[in-house]
């Protein structure tokens, strides 16, 4: 295993039970700094649950999570986000009635520090507009900046979500099925986007689209029934007979 300063996020013995049902069962995960790490596995393997545990949307039944050598097991979701560990959702999450620009700006507002200033005019936010526009350009949404986010086509919403996440300048991003429900065109665009943004940060993603996984990820962890089934790069993992049986199946190219 890599030396610990090389590992940005580590879990040990992570476990989550739901009323007698064990969804995540003693997962040890180590994500290397600067890598793209994929979490794959059959449906119901516990991937989303893992994500929810990492970002504190669920409380682990047992186990610890360390991020940058710091124990974050007991922290609140918003705190984790402020440490630079930011997630996206399996089902796209934008602020539907805000404009596209405002969506990104909401994230940029975090930079202003405490945004509890209810006595100040929102005009002070105009300063952030340029940065927001830059981010939108990066994901190809500049043309939509004044549209209402809820009206964007699905694929664009995902792009907007990524832009919003990037606006926080996260050190590490967690992406849950970033290409789910996208047409081939959008899948391609999104994959490139992920590749681009992963240049100087760590990405942990859940993904079913094996071609995306194989092209993007440096390392893959396969979960099955809440446990780690296999780990390694794509070739190792895809050659593992247990993975073939539990996940990839036969006859797949």
């Amino acid at each position, binding site marked *: 295993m890599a030396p610990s300063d090389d590992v940005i996020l580590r879990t040990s013995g992570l476990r989550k039970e739901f009323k007698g049902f064990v969804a995540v069962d003693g997962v040890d995960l180590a994500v290397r700094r600067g890598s793209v790490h994929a979490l794959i596995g059959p449906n119901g393997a516990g991937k989303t649950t893992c994500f929810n545990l990492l970002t504190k949307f669920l409380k682990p039944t047992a186990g610890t999570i360390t991020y940058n050598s710091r124990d974050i097991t007991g922290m609140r979701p918003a705190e984790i986000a402020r440490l630079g560990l*930011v997630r996206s959702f399996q089902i796209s999450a934008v602020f539907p009635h805000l404009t596209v620009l405002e969506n990104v700006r909401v994230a940029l*507002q975090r930079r202003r520090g405490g945004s509890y200033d209810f006595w100040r005019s929102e005009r002070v936010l105009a300063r952030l507009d340029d940065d927001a526009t830059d981010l939108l350009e990066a994901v190809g949404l500049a043309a939509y900046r004044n549209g209402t986010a809820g009206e964007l086509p699905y694929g664009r919403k995902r792009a907007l979500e990524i832009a919003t996440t990037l606006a926080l300048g996260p050190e590490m991003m967690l992406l849950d099925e970033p290409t789910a429900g996208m047409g081939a065109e959008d899948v391609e665009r999104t994959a490139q986007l992920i590749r681009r943004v992963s240049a100087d940060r760590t990405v942990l993603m859940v993904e079913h689209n094996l071609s995306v996984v194989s092209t993007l990820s440096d390392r893959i962890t396969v979960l099955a029934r809440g446990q780690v089934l296999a780990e390694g790069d794509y070739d190792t993992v895809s050659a593992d007979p247990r993975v073939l049986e539990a996940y990839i199946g036969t006859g797949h190219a």
Partner: protein
Amino acid sequence: MAAETETIPFEETELDVRARSYAHHGIVFAALAVLLLAAPFLVYPVFAMKVLCFALFASAFNLLLGYGGLLSFGHAAFFGMASYVSAYAAKSWGLTPELSILLGTAVAVLLGTLIGAISIRRQGIYFAMVTLAFAQMVYFFALQARFTGGEDGIQAVPRGWLFGVIHLGDDRTLYYIVALVFFVGLLIIHRVIHSPFGQIMKAIRENEPRAISLGYEANRYKLIVFMLSAGLSGLAGAVKAIVFQLASLTDVHWTMSGEVVLMTLIGGMGTVFGPMVGAAVVVTMQNYLAAFGAWVTIIQGVIFVACVLLFREGIVGLLARLLRRPL
């Protein structure tokens, strides 16, 4: 589940993002100021003051509902408690009106902090019910405590001398003070909505988990709005006690909480000026329907039903849609 499929209860608010410009708000505020100055020459000043107190109350409530997305069913607690406290301070301690009102408001903020801190942890209908539960306890307290005078309330509260110098016995003088308080209150609310804080608030209302994942402590934002709303509601209640020289159980009863919901809806929730119009309509209705005796409730009921079925976005909401401008 998905942010897009979630019912965002208040579609009217779309408007305030669609049209980027709020320049016309300046005009509306100016018109409002003129109206406020002229009002006591047009209508009975005591009536105008009543409208203003409720308008402030409804606007404060709307801040929480229309912009915070939180439907409180216990706002009478703040309105009523503040009203009791300021009445008591003015009557029994002989404090000047401005101090009594400040004291009442402070108590409302305090109470808001307490109730808010607990209830914002719940959402939707549960939030409404927790606030109702607390309001019922406040009601019980008001009924039992000595200083509130039971069902007689605190009567014959002196209007007193503002800052010890301006006598408020004259309705018109008092009116201008109330109008000023109201106007400032409305400006505060407007500013809160259009502040960086307000922007985050909107984001939280639209998609709370996402806002949290961006690092915002949603509960803290909600608590602040709750406190602001409670404080401004308290301000309205405190002023009302001085104007009417009376604080009574009516102000803490749950029907008062219901009434403010009604005013907000009739006027148009999530609009800056709607609650004000709604308050004016409801108060006028109560005032002039009183002569209809037993028919009052029937007429009121019919109006509610008609409102829900025909003008759901409220009067100002409808206007805003017709003008294609957020109001």
